[in-house]
C-alpha cells in the first residue's frame, strides 16, 4: 500500500497547537485513519494534551479523555470495562502516551493493564524525552544525548521497552516509526483486529527536543531505522517478525548505517562532535546498538 491509498477521511481536524514538524501530529493522522471513528482515546499528560487545543475547542473528531500522567492504561481499563458493560464492544479503546508516560511514570499501570488482558491498544509515541515539560531526560533518552537535565549528555542507555512488553506475552506488540506511515497504518489495523492488549510504539523524532530543523522530522525517522538505532518489528503471540529495512538488517542483507550519520544532524549530540570529536562516546553508542542487534539475531532469527 502507498500513502495515497490511506483513507481520505480526517479525524484530526484543524486547530491543533503542535510545533511545526511535530511527529505526534503526523502519527495521529495515520492512527485515526487506521482505527476509524468508532474509537475512544485516553491521553495522559504529554505533548498531545497541548496539541489537542484549548477548551472549549478541540482538534480531535473522536471522543478523547485526558487523564493523569501515570494513569493512561488504568483509565483505559475502566473505559473498556464501562463500554463492555453497556454492550458497546465494537468501540476501539486507545491509550495514547509519550515515552515519559510509558517508560517511566506510567509503566506500572501499563504493566497491570497488559497483565489483566485488557482489550485495548496502548500507543507510545516515543520522542525520547519529556518534551512537553521542556526536554528533560526520560528512560527512553539515548546515551550521550543532551537534555536540560543531562547537560553534558546522558550517562545511561535507554531501557528496552519492547523487551519489557514482550515479557508480558500479549497477543500483539509492534515497533514502528513516523517515517513509515504505511507500516504504522498496517500495524494499527492489525492491532485493531486482535482481541486483548496490544502495544504499538512509534519512534517520533522531535525537532525542538532533538535540535534539528522542523522539515527534517521524516528524514530523522528514516535514519533512526537505517542506522539500526530503532527497529521496525511486530510480535504476534510471541512470534517476532522484523519489517522493512530492519528485516534486511536483521538478516544481514544490508549493513546498518553508522550511527554518526544520524546523530551528527541532531543538536542534542553536538557536544560529541564539537569542540572535538568524542570518539569514545560515539563508539559506546555504536557498540550498544551492535549489542542490541546481536541480541535480536540470537532471539529472533
Amino acid at each position: 500500500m502507498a500513502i495515497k491509498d490511506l483513507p481520505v477521511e480526517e479525524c484530526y481536524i484543524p486547530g491543533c497547537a503542535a510545533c511545526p514538524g511535530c511527529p505526534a501530529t503526523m502519527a495521529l493522522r495515520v492512527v485515526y485513519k487506521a482505527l476509524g471513528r468508532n474509537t475512544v482515546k485516553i491521553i495522559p499528560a504529554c505533548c498531545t494534551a497541548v496539541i489537542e487545543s484549548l477548551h472549549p475547542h478541540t482538534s480531535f473528531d473522536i471522543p478523547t479523555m485526558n487523564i493523569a500522567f501515570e494513569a493512561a492504561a488504568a483509565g483505559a481499563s475502566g473505559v473498556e470495562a464501562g463500554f463492555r458493560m453497556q454492550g458497546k464492544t465494537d468501540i476501539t479503546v486507545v491509550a495514547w502516551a509519550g515515552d515519559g508516560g510509558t517508560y517511566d511514570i506510567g509503566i506500572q499501570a501499563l504493566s497491570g493493564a497488559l497483565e489483566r488482558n485488557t482489550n485495548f491498544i496502548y500507543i507510545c509515541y516515543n520522542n525520547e524525552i519529556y518534551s512537553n515539560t521542556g526536554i528533560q531526560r526520560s528512560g527512553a533518552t539515548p546515551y550521550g544525548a543532551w537534555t536540560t537535565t543531562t547537560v553534558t549528555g546522558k550517562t545511561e542507555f535507554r531501557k528496552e521497552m519492547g523487551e519489557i512488553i514482550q515479557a508480558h506475552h500479549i497477543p500483539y506488540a509492534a515497533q514502528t516509526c513516523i517515517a513509515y506511515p504505511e507500516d504504522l497504518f498496517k500495524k494499527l489495523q492489525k492491532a485493531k483486529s486482535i482481541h486483548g492488549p496490544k502495544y504499538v510504539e512509534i519512534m517520533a523524532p522531535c525537532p525542538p527536543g532533538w535540535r534539528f530543523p522542523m522539515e527534517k522530522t521524516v528524514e530523522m525517522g528514516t535514519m533512526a531505522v537505517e542506522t539500526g538505532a530503532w527497529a521496525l518489528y511486530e510480535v504476534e503471540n510471541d512470534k517476532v517478525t522484523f519489517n522493512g529495512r530492519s528485516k534486511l538488517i536483521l538478516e544481514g542483507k544490508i549493513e546498518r548505517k553508522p550511527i554518526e550519520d544520524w546523530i551528527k544532524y541532531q543538536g542534542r549530540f553536538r557536544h560529541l562532535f564539537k569542540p572535538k570529536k568524542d570518539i569514545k562516546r560515539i563508539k559506546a553508542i555504536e557498540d550498544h546498538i551492535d549489542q542490541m542487534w546481536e541480541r535480536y539475531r540470537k532471539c529472533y532469527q
Partner: protein
Amino acid sequence: MSEVMIDTGNYIAAKAAVLCKPDVVAAYPITPQTTLVEGIAKYLATGEYKGEYICVESEHSAMAACIGASATGVRTFTGTSSHGLLLMHEMLHWASLARLPVIMCNINRVVGPGWNIWADENDSISQRDTGWIQFYCSSNQEIFDTVIQSFKLGEHEKISLPVMISYNAFILSHTSMPVYLTDQKDVDAFLPKRKPKWKLDPDNPITFGNIILPAEYEKVRFDMQKSHEYAKKLIPEISKEWKQRFGRYHGDLLEFYKCDGADYILLSMGAIGAESKVAVDNLRKEGLKVGLARVRCFRPFPREEIQKLSKKAGLIVIDRNISPGMEGALFTEVKASLYGYTDAKVYGFIAGLGGKDVPFGDIEKMCKKVVNSKAKHLEWFGLKGV
C-alpha cells in the same frame, strides 16, 4: 419486615454496594478494607454481582479505572483505606473535577510510619479539599444505608460529584452487628438509573479535560462549590425519603441526640460519635445538660446548623485527627463556622489517635472537664509520658 444480616461493616458495605448494581468495581486490597473487596468478589462468584470487577495493581489505578468507567456513563464503586487513599489523592481531585460520581468506602486507618492498622481519621481528613462529599458512619446500619443513599446523592444531576463513605477500622469494619437490609426491588425503586452529565461517546465526540484558561477554570471550581451547597439541601431530602420508605434515619448532615435544653453540645464523628451517645445518656442521668450533634457529613460542612447550635449552647469538639501545627480539623471548622455569628465557647479535644480506644467513660470525662470549667481551649485527652 426486612431481612436482617448480622455481619461486619465491610461485608455490609459490600452488600449495600452490590444492591446498587454498579457496572464497574475497580479495587486494590489494603488492610482493613480487604474484606470489603473480598465481599464483592464473593458476590461476583455467586452471580449476585453482575458487573465488572477489575483487580488493579494499585489504588491509583483503582481510582483511574473508576474514572475511566464512570466517563462512559456507568455506575462505579470502590473501597480503600489509609495509604491506599493517600495514593489515590491525585485521582480523587481528578474524579471530582471531572464531575464523575464514583462512590467509595474508606475505612479510616492510621497513616504510617510506624505501621499501624487501627482507627484514625487523618487519612480521609487529609483528603478534605479534594471536592469529594464525605460521610462518616457510626454503625453498620448507617454504613448500609449511607452507601445506597450516596449513589442517589452523587449521581443527582445537580451534584455529579464523587462520594466517600468513611468508617473506622475494625471498630466497624470488622465488628459484626445486625443490620436491616433493603430488598433489591426497593433499592431499585429508590435509586434511579444514572443519567451522566457528559460521557465518552463516538456519536458525540467531545474532548474532555484539555487545557483550560483561568477564567474558565474558576467557573469549574465555582460550579463545584454550588453543587456542594446544593448537597446541603439534598442530603436531608434523601434522608427523609429513606426514612419514609424504610423507617431508618441517621440524621442529615448532623445527627442530633438529646440537644434540647442542652448547655453544652458535643460534636464528634465516626465510632466516637456512637460512643458519644452512651456518654450523653450517662451525663444526662447525672443531671448534666449535654447533648450530641454527631457530624455525619464533613463535606459539605454543616456550617449553618452548627451556627444555630451555638446560639443555645457551648460546644465540645472531639477530633480523631490532627492537622499538625494547628489542631483537630473538626475543631477548626466548627470555630470557623461561628466567626462573626456568635461568641460561643468552643473546646477541643484530640483523642483516639493511632487507634487508641475512646470509650464513653473518657468522653464523659472530657465533657465534665468543660462543664466544671477545668478544660483548656485544646487538650490531648489521656496523653501520657510526654
